[in-house]
């Protein structure tokens, strides 16, 4: 299946609006129930594409495109739909604010006890997670962009006032979410002979290196990251140990605000980085320094400061995990699947998450240096292609293995530290397919090697087939996700409720695809050369043709006008669209050959 982002996004919009409006009011019909994360995901499905993709905006009624208007029509007309949406955003902000107006981020139904039958305590229902913060960053930014742009077109005093209030609340929410992310970053130091240290060494060992050599090399590679981390304000228990080069360390995001030395009650998470939450945090943080955010000036001076702090940690974390993933040189440890972590048993998810961090690293370097070197991408592309196979997407899922379980029910990730307020909790992670597709598309967009790109795009097509096979096909939520069993021919009874968790992630995939379509096509040197040669011959033959006939007064033959125009156009586009130039040159050659052939016949008298 070829991904058509505009169409896909509009279908998601249509279905989201259709199933969320009940008797005129906005509700969350999702399978996880209502919660700060799930409600935000539902709204992000509408707001994020408009934020990122040109031509899908709806904040300027005079500039909204017709198909966009039609997809949102149940919300109202050209002007009433944005008004209604702004109201819905306002209500969301009211719902997730404490009495004193402070924004709150309860993870709600997203967290479930590890043990069957246990009930989370009321205190645990209020736990705030990195996922909630990250989603809040994305939500606040895209909603801010929408509200600000809409407010510029509103004249009425009452609506202006209410939009200004919404804007202020979004601003507060964004600040709090950024603080939450900062509080969830952590550094974990451990000796090489601890269980964690041994897992790490085992993961990195490739060719039976003696452990001493490996540790030296590792210390060397991670030197800059260690130095960078030591520049951060760290808890008193961590800072001195980090200075000890004999100890190993890891950094990244824990599942929530981490327990500090003075043990504040709301911060309960163990200060141990989790790959899933690190990637989740990174995906939100990149929105803070995206072009759209900077161009529209969405951040306040205070938020710029916080964003800078987050960016430092983001750089350090991706530097750390990328160093591990590519440790040693020729063959990457990441290719030796699956990635082993100390926090969970080995799983394809861990490989995918480390690969995701590497993609973040490459995109960052690509932004800085234009084109990432080719040899960087081949091992990563291999890993992604293999992950698609292991996920039972490009290869038949193994009957006994855990292939299908990757998607349904997914992997239950423990949240160490959550047991302080009740039963130990976990987070069910099931975004394997959309996450993989997103990374495949991102890497395909980065690679200058066209064959590598084709290979990745064909995997992307299969992943898209798999995902689109998982859409609900009846009920008001038809066209949304998720029926994972459908991809494996399981006769699951269809859930009537959409999963915003998965729908939001598929929407992100479509936004990445839309950005890719918007770029200039990858340039093929071979095609450029061919086009140049064809054009040269066409121009030469045309010159001969003009030379061979007498100059006559009056308007020139239409054939020559056409040929001349085609050659001009071909010369204009040969650099940007060599294929088009080749086609134009070929057409000219054919037309000129018609004349030559006719002359030939005449001279032979045939």
């Amino acid at each position, binding site marked *: 299946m070829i991904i058509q982002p505009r169409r896909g996004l509009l279908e998601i919009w249509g279905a989201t609006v259709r199933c969320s409006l009940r008797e005129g009011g906005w509700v969350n019909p999702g399978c996880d129930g209502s919660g700060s994360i799930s409600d935000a995901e539902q709204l992000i499905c509408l707001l994020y594409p408009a934020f990122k993709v040109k031509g899908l905006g709806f904040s300027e009624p005079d500039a909204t495109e017709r198909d966009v208007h039609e997809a949102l029509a149940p919300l109202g007309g050209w002007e009433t739909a944005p008004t209604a949406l702004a109201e819905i955003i306002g209500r969301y902000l009211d719902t997730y604010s404490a009495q004193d107006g402070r924004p709150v981020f309860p993870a709600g139904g997203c967290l479930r006890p590890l043990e069957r039958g246990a009930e989370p305590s009321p205190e645990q229902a209020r736990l705030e997670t990195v996922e909630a913060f990250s989603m809040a960053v994305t939500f606040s930014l895209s909603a801010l962009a929408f509200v600000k742009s809409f407010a510029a077109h509103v004249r009425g005093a009452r*609506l202006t006032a209410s939009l200004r209030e919404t804007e202020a609340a979004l601003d507060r929410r964004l600040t709090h979410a950024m603080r939450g992310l900062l509080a969830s970053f952590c550094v974990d130091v451990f000796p090489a002979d601890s269980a964690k240290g041994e897992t790490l060494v085992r993961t990195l060992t490739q060719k039976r290196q003696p452990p001493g050599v490996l540790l030296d090399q590792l210390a060397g590679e991670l030197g800059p990251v260690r130095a960078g981390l030591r520049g951060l304000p760290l808890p008193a228990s961590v800072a001195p140990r980090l200075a000890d080069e004999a100890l190993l360390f890891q950094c990244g995001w824990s599942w929530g605000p981490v327990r500090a030395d003075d043990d504040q009650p709301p911060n309960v998470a163990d200060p141990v980085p989790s790959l899933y939450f690190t990637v989740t945090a990174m995906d939100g943080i990149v929105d803070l320094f995206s072009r759209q955010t900077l161009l529209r000036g969405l951040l306040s001076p205070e938020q710029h400061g916080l964003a800078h702090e987050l960016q430092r940690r983001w750089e350090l974390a991706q530097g750390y995990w990328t160093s591990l993933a590519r440790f040693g040189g020729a063959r990457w440890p990441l290719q030796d699947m699956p990635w082993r972590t100390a926090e969970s048993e080995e799983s394809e998810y861990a490989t995918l998450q480390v690969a995701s961090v590497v993609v973040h690293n490459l995109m960052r370097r690509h932004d800085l240096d234009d084109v990432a070197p080719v040899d960087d991408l081949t091992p990563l592309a291999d890993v992604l292609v293999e992950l698609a196979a292991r996920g039972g997407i490009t290869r038949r899922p193994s009957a006994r293995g855990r292939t299908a379980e990757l998607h349904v029910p997914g992997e239950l990730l423990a949240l160490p530290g959550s047991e302080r307020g009740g039963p130990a909790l976990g987070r069910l992670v099931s975004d394997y397919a959309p996450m993989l597709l997103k990374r495949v598309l991102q890497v395909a967009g980065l690679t200058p090697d066209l064959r590598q790109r084709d290979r990745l795009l064909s995997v992307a097509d299969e992943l898209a087939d798999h995902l689109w096979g998982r859409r609900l096909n009846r009920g008001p939520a038809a066209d949304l996700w998720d029926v994972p069993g459908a991809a494996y021919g399981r006769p699951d009874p269809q859930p009537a409720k959409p999963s915003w968790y998965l729908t939001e992630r598929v929407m992100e995939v479509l936004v990445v695809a839309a950005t890719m379509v918007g770029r200039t096509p990858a340039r093929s040197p071979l095609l450029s050369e061919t086009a140049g040669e064809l054009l040269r011959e066409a121009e030469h033959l045309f010159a001969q043709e003009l030379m061979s006939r007498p100059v006559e007064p009056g308007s020139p033959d239409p054939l020559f006008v056409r040929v001349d125009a085609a050659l001009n156009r071909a010369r204009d586009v040969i650099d940007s669209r060599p294929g088009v130039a080749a086609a134009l040159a070929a057409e000219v050659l054919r037309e000129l050959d018609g004349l030559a052939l006719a002359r030939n016949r005449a001279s032979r008298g045939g």
Partner: protein
Amino acid sequence: MIVFATSDKGGTGRSVTCANIAYRRALTGDNVAYVDFDFGSPTAATVFELGSAVRAHPGGGVHSYLQGRTAEPVRLDVWSLSEREALRGSLRGAGRLCLVPGDVGGGEFPADEAVTRRCANLFLALEEEFAVTLVDLSAGRSYAIDIALRTTARPELRDVVTRWLVFHRWTRQHLEATAALVRDERGILQIGAHWGHEQDALEGRVRYVRAAVPGIDLPEQDTGFPAAGHGLRPEQKEWLKACDAELTRRSGKLGLGRTVTLGTVPLDPVLQWREQLITDEDVLMPQIANRETAEAFQDLADGLTDESRWETL
């Protein structure tokens, strides 16, 4: 309610559209008056096909009235006097439809206190009798606009609801000229402010009508008539679409976007050839006019009193 219609340029189909709005509005049961303030070229009578009735009252039109030569302008009842058979005879459920014509051969004249006083009296009298009074002003900056703004600023008309329809065609030149007619120096808003209108409130009473807009993607089977976009080559369609998108952007920037547009009248072959009222028979039997055109007129007629379409966002 008094509705003033104007445009920057001629050829927008302002008069014929107004006449059709009046006609559609009367069919729904309201009493409607149509006043011809196109002083330089008073030709509204031809659209209603009331030519001989107007000629029977020389010197009885609004020119003579406003300049004090007659005590009251004539009112011509379209249902009984029109030469077009389809319009004659009482229509069940329809309200009255009256034309207050200009003088045959009348010309422009400037406004003064006496003219505006007489004009105010005329408007008040019509307001009492008719639910909607449509006043067709001439194209461009004219004495008629000046009279209208000066009259409606008078205290005795304070409680009368007034609205402005500004017609333009869907081209770059028309968009720019129209924005200038309303917003520029010596534009409608400034003249209005000069006579005592509050500028923001006046602007809130202005809506635009896009006239003679060529359709690009009207499906043929719905119209029963080849749509304007039918039979175009793909390149021509692409060009039209690109132009349309460009005009949409430009109109938004000039303050003529869809949020301040009351309606769009498609290009209709019938109106290209002759200014006339488009009746339901014209659409159905024989099908000489496009259904979209009649629907557009009906939509405009409804839109005049649809408060939600006159609200400022």
